[in-house]
């Protein structure tokens, strides 16, 4: 899993890549080497460890999912938050999400295929039991909520067809 994340942060403009469970627990992360001695922080604004970033991002994703879930839209599988200092790109998959922190001048669209590939590899990795899986024991996609208006449980459902890249292409 770490190798997959390391391959992502080799690209210029990608500060960090993390796999985070939907409840905000950091599963694995890799931080770009180009950032020098402050590589373990999210931004220049504050020394935030990557765990804090994971928890706060997960909270935000939950809020977004709840808001759009009231429209019975289902859960999001890709979210991009562009801000003045950084851009966050989230790609949800089974029970977890892949989170990239980008420079603000990097177009998030450029990371789409990279993230699709990475997610496919991560899902293969989880299915073969090669790494730490956040939904181990669940035996499949994250369970559906009792009501359609509880979208947080849908976040983990990749998309129709069961493949991130196929679904992204269809939508």
């Amino acid at each position, binding site marked *: 899993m770490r190798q997959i994340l390391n391959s992502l942060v080799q690209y210029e403009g990608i500060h960090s890549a993390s796999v985070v469970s939907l409840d905000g627990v950091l599963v694995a992360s890799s931080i770009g080497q180009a950032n020098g001695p402050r590589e373990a922080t999210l931004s*220049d604004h504050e020394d935030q460890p990557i765990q804090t970033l994971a928890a706060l991002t997960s909270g935000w994703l939950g809020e*977004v999912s709840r808001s*759009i879930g009231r429209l019975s839209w289902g859960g*999001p599988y890709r979210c991009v*938050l*562009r*801000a003045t200092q950084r851009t966050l790109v989230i790609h949800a998959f089974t029970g977890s999400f892949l989170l990239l922190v980008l420079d603000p*001048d990097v177009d998030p669209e450029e990371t789409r295929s990279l993230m699709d590939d990475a997610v496919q590899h991560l899902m293969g990795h989880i299915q073969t039991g090669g790494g730490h899986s956040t939904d181990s024991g669940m035996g499949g996609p994250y369970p559906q909520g009792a009501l359609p208006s509880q979208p947080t449980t849908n976040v983990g459902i990749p998309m129709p067809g069961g493949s991130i890249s196929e679904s992204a292409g269809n*939508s």
Partner: protein
Amino acid sequence: MSFFSNFTSKKRIRAALRRLGAEPSAENYVAVAREHVVVGNLQDILRVCSEGLSLHPGNAELMRIAERARQLQLDSRIRTLRQDLTLSPRPALWRELCDVLLECGRLQHAEETAEQWWNQAGGGESTFYRARARASQFFQGCRASDGKVAWDLALEAVREMPGDSRPLEVQYDISKAAGAWAEARKVLARILEISPGHPQHEQRFRDASQRVHDSKSLRAGLAEIEATGRFADSPEANGGQSNVAIRPLLKRMGADSDVKAVIFQRGGTALVQGLHGGTADRTARAVREVGVSTRSSARRIGIGRSLEVSVEGEFGSLVIALGTMGTAACWGRSYRKPEHADALQTIVGASKAGHATGGAA
């Protein structure tokens, strides 16, 4: 760089320059700049980019290369200054290092450097730079605690160097942003005592005096900034209007077969194109919730002011632009389209303002 690679690079530069001479297009300027990047001569890169941008203003690639080269130049200056400071620490070097770090937008580093300076030598100047760095963080992240700390540090700097108006100007910027006009007027009165007759400060003093009846306390103003992400002197807070006609833009976007709905929100009012009745209400409410949670989350995470959110799912894509003039959203059937995102940014007045805020800090 080896002799051979140096030789081939120079050959490629000459070829690129010949092409540029034949046709001074933006692409040829970019090609020459890229060849200079290979050699690593920052001065040449900046010179070519500057020349190219004067002929092709706004070319994104030239701007990106120039910005990167400028950043590398500043990085190099920072390294030199740090080495010099270890050998012979003196106020001029500390001051320049803090200025360069602030110019680069490395606000936390600037504050840490000013703290080192303060620990080693003390003095009002170092306190002023701590206040300035923290105030820049406040303007970038809209955190009330940053504003309060910056205010207190500036106050301390005022006590340490009573004849200098710079810390007072930091206080003025914070009080103005918070809508604490009574405080702003007091600060301006002290600035005018130091530099009497200054036309800009006199104008500011008159403005603050006129608005003093609308004044909030500093604490309340800072708390409001944290809650809303808007400064009291921003166009939206002053009831300013966007220069663009919103309804025609919404209609034009809504006419696209790929677009299901377009929404604009400001305060408690929403304009919805493409949906009707209860569905329009619910969708507008959801967009508002996403906007509010995104603004506050971006501040908590520490990535600055949020500019845009895009969400994709089985429903299609929802792009929300968050700007000073309000919130605009486009619900599309497929991926986010750049032209739609640009139109949304134009509606909310965020395309320039947001980046300018980030860059200025």
